[in-house]
């Protein structure tokens, strides 16, 4: 696992936090570097790719100077880091506007979709996983694992259109696309949340199974606690930690899946902005979208690590 690489010795709490923040900062710098280098991967001349072949030499030179492509690489790099630190993400070619506010307008929609999908997947996965573990080997377990296999294999660029076909076109219950009202959120959230629900259900199941074999569960049963209390109070509470870590890691798949889901449903978020920008060769916007999505992923994982240490006294050490 990723966590195995980051050095997390059982040092005192504050040192551990400092070490985690330090390694996250290094990763952030690395991500910025890679995103900076992206534009230098454009085959041939990026300026020519943006303006087309018929552009006047004067326009080309102007754009080259505006992008700073006429300066040495290290100077461009330092300039990029400095501007990014000030949240100056450049100017969009397609919209002729600064990128930062353009991105800002798209963030709420993506956040709303991600939170809805995460909530939905938890609502499905936790009861399903717990019940599958309780009735291990039974029909419910088989059904839950079947769902888990299917959900992990179904691509969201196919699930989306199929859901549109059934619920929007045939039944007419939900809007086909766009973001107007709560009903328009349902299908995108289901599309995005299914894969995560599948992975989480499997994890909840194996995690609860492990906990159910512990001594204190036997103690809880021996002292006459009801099955409900044992399952949801004792078992699930301790099965949470590995699930929490997995949610942090799976958020990456969720954010990348949001790019595709937003495209399917014309959902006006950061993901569909990224695809529009790629098609329009609007490189500053492409860079900014990739940077934003990756940095929020890094941030969430650093936070998950810290919460993990806080939630589990055994890790606190």
């Amino acid at each position, binding site marked *: *696992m*990723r966590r*195995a*690489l*980051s050095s997390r010795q059982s040092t005192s709490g504050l040192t551990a936090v400092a070490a985690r923040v330090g*390694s996250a900062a*290094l*990763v*952030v710098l*690395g*991500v910025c*570097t*890679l995103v900076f280098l*992206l*534009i230098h*991967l*454009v*085959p041939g001349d990026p300026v020519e790719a943006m303006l087309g072949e018929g552009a006047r030499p004067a326009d080309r030179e102007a754009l080259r100077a505006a992008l700073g492509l006429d300066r040495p690489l290290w100077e461009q790099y330092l300039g990029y880091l400095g501007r990014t630190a000030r949240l100056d993400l450049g100017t969009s070619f397609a919209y002729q506007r600064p990128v930062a506010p353009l991105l800002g307008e798209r963030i709420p929609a993506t956040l709303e979709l991600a939170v809805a999908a995460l909530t939905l997947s938890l609502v499905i996965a936790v009861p399903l996983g717990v019940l599958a573990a309780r009735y291990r080997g039974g029909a419910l377990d088989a059904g839950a694992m079947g769902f888990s*296999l*299917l959900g*992990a*294999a*179904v*691509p969201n*660029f*196919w699930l989306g*259109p*199929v859901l*549109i*076909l059934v619920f929007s*076109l045939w039944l007419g219950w939900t809007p086909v696309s766009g973001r107007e009202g709560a009903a328009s959120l349902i299908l995108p959230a289901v599309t995005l949340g299914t894969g995560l629900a599948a992975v989480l259900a499997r994890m909840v199941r*194996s995690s609860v199974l492990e906990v159910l074999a512990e001594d204190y569960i036997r103690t809880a049963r021996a002292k006459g606690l009801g099955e409900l209390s044992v399952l949801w109070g004792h078992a699930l509470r301790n099965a949470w930690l*590995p699930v929490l*870590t*997995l949610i942090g*890691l799976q*958020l*990456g*798949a*969720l*954010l*990348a*899946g949001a*790019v*595709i889901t937003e*495209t*399917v449903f014309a959902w006006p978020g950061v993901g569909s902005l*990224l*695809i529009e920008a*790629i*098609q329009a060769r609007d*490189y500053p916007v*492409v860079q900014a979208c*990739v940077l934003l*999505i*990756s940095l929020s*992923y*890094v941030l969430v994982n650093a936070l998950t690590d810290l919460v993990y240490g806080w939630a589990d006294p055994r890790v606190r050490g």
Partner: protein
Amino acid sequence: MSILRDGLPAGLLLLWVLAALSAPWLPLVPDRIDLTAILAPPGAGAPLGNDDLGRPVLDRLLAGARTSLLVGVGVVAISVLIGVAVGGVAGLAGGWVDLALVRLIDVFLAFPGILLAIALAGILGPGIDNLIIALAAVGWVGYARLVRAQILSLKRRDHVTAALALGAGPARILLRHLLPLTLAPLLVEATFGIAAAVIAEAGLSFLGLGVQPPQASWGSMIRDGAAYLLVAPHLVLAPGLAVLLVVLSVNLLGDRLRDRLDVRAGP
């Protein structure tokens, strides 16, 4: 049960590989435009109907199988090669080399899912070669991490010490004494990697960042068919089911391999 569990996935995979390998020799016409058959539903002439240009969907599906197998195997092969090299050097060398490579791995892992591949494919431009480059550029990281962890746990073993004492160089230690012991987990990881690459190829092609038209890909078939969802749902249903079944079968096979080879379940 075992027929259902093993026979069906194995049969589906065999079908996929056979279709992909034999596509050039089958009498397929995936690019034949027939304006009289536009959006025709499945029927006698074309078992899966025709698309918005009147091209037979079945033929395009089989041609798409070739694309997905090529990309799936190509991406995993390149990723494993890079991953073994990076992970092997990091694990064996240790010290600052290891530290630097681990930082590099951490940075690549900081990009969520296939986001980096989407950006790379978008910037490099469409085409199957760029698609493979973009996916391998993201895919090597998992193998590097796996190989490094394996080698760290193996390199203090007695047989390695013995080989060192006999004067074996680092390359020989890595290739002859360490890598053979990491083959089982690597094989399991690579199997799941093929499923991931098939989904990723279709996903990038769906976004218009994959293969160039008229070359067939299951992802671009879904993309093109989505516009005719109500009048011709078979355009979306057929390629989607193909992706789903292949990925499901590969995953099931991976699960079985993991159980058989007794590889400790990953996260």
